[in-house]
């Protein structure tokens, strides 16, 4: 079974994002970019499936600017076999991403597509579910544990208030949550080996997808700033203020 792993290049999660003064977006100039943290978990899961003999090939896909090839290289260094880069400049909405991925799925015929539950830039949490719907496939979102059976996958999901297990027919879509696994660091020899692994260059037009955004972003602003409050001297004073001044104790 082939496993497809879409990976997104985003601002590194440790970077404090800055909103541009003209309110058109956040500043991406000279900012450290990395693989979306949830996507690292996807790559790890796919590579583990291959190591256990359950997957035959792991294909990493990225949809983004030319530099997204670095994100694919990271996946290749972690153990993915080959990459596909669909070059697009500018923001691509989840629905367009899902349509491109549908085209790739039809060409590659994977048994499982593993995606991050969301990207930490636009926080949409849509692409996996949209891809599943477009393909008519079932989904196991926010996965915490995966067990592959014969023609089925049992996925334990993180839901509000606990865990839920669903059984889906494969081929299927899985989106991952934080607890599925702990991604490995690529070793230096594997980073070197990754440089020789192939990456196919594609464009959205190859899949007949128009990536023009449908939503119009009118502006991007800073959230309301919090002011530092007061320092209290004792625990008793803190409890008193919470109860009587702020009125937030039951």
């Amino acid at each position, binding site marked *: 079974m082939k496993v497809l792993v879409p990976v997104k290049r985003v601002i590194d999660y440790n970077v404090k994002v800055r909103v541009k003064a003209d309110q058109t977006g956040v500043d991406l100039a000279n900012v450290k970019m990395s693989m979306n943290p949830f996507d690292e978990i996807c790559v790890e899961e796919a590579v583990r499936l291959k190591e256990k003999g359950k997957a035959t090939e792991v294909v990493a896909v990225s949809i983004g600017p030319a530099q997204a090839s670095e994100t694919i290289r990271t996946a290749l260094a972690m153990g993915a076999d080959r990459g596909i880069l669909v070059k697009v400049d500018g923001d691509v909405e989840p*629905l367009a991403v899902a349509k491109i991925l549908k085209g790739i799925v039809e060409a590659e015929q994977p048994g499982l597509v593993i995606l991050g539950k969301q990207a930490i830039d636009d926080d949409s949490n849509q692409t996996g579910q949209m891809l599943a719907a477009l393909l008519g496939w079932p989904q196991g*979102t926010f996965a915490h544990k995966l067990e592959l059976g014969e023609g089925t996958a049992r996925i334990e999901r993180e839901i509000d208030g606990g865990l839920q297990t669903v*059984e889906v027919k494969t081929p299927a879509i899985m989106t991952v949550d934080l607890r599925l696994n702990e991604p490995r660091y690529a070793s230096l020899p594997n980073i070197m080996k990754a440089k020789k692994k192939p990456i196919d260059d594609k464009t959205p037009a190859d899949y007949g997808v128009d990536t023009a955004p449908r939503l119009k972003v009118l502006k991007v602003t800073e959230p309301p700033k919090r002011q*530092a409050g007061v320092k209290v001297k004792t625990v008793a004073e803190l409890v008193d203020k919470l109860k009587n001044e702020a009125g*937030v104790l039951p």
Partner: protein
Amino acid sequence: MTSLVIAEHDNKTLKEQTAKAVTAAAQLGAPVHVLVAGQDAGAVADAAAKLAGVEKVLLADDAQYAKLVAESVEALILSLADKYDAILAPATTNGKNYLPRVAAKLDVPQISEILKVVSPDTFERPIYAGNAIQTVQAPEGKKVITVRTTAFKAAEATGSASVEKISAAADPGISKFVGEELSKSERPELTSAKIVISGGRGMQSGDNFHLLDKIADKLHAAVGASRAAVDAGFVPNDYQVGQTGKVVAPELYIAVGISGAIQHLAGMKDSKVIAAINKDEEAPIFQVADYGLVADLFKALPEMEEELTKLGY
């Protein structure tokens, strides 16, 4: 035309998130219908019918909806979609699970986790875990929206809409619910708790989290943690509040032994009141805290417990 809100419930009770999504839907300016998909969920439909601003409740009562499995709910919503201009769901793990499927099938973009209805086609939503706010305008056509429920007040139970039973859609038969394990804790869930008390690396060990538990029990609070505490193995990942963990916005957030890394602040800075206890007076958490106490948490927490006991908690 009309807006449709998909109800969040457990077949017995209607969750408050539904009442909040109804408030958001009402701001679109069109009549609001609520869809209850469930099994033996008549009581839920009756509760939804009482929400102010709701004109009609649709009840699809069928075994395949018992757990709101995404593929089944998608088919049901699509069977109704023609009649509606906007389809909204609270941004719960259920809403996030099924609603993008509906948007994709309708070939419209979904607008995730709206914080504010600026006008019937324009919305504010958080990006970068709330470190920036995007104002987006939806194109002509149907709108598919999930609602960040912490940003809207619950519609009151002063209405009296009718409940109409509707038939189930064909079961797609590609997935099934196997089981669930809901945390048995008497404490509320992290994302819906009115009070959250979180520990950071300063807690020094998982055992020390019982100091937080005792206070949480008194205040009916949820217990959370920073990524540093999770990475150090003190508590499981589902405690994690932050950019890659859970985003919370309780009435009161108490940060204990948490320095206030950017990624943690992203997950809690929309809390109404923030209190911080940290022995380092330079800790960034104090820049966002309404009340800061520079103290050793191992002294402060038992004192706090005692103080609360004195006040009758």
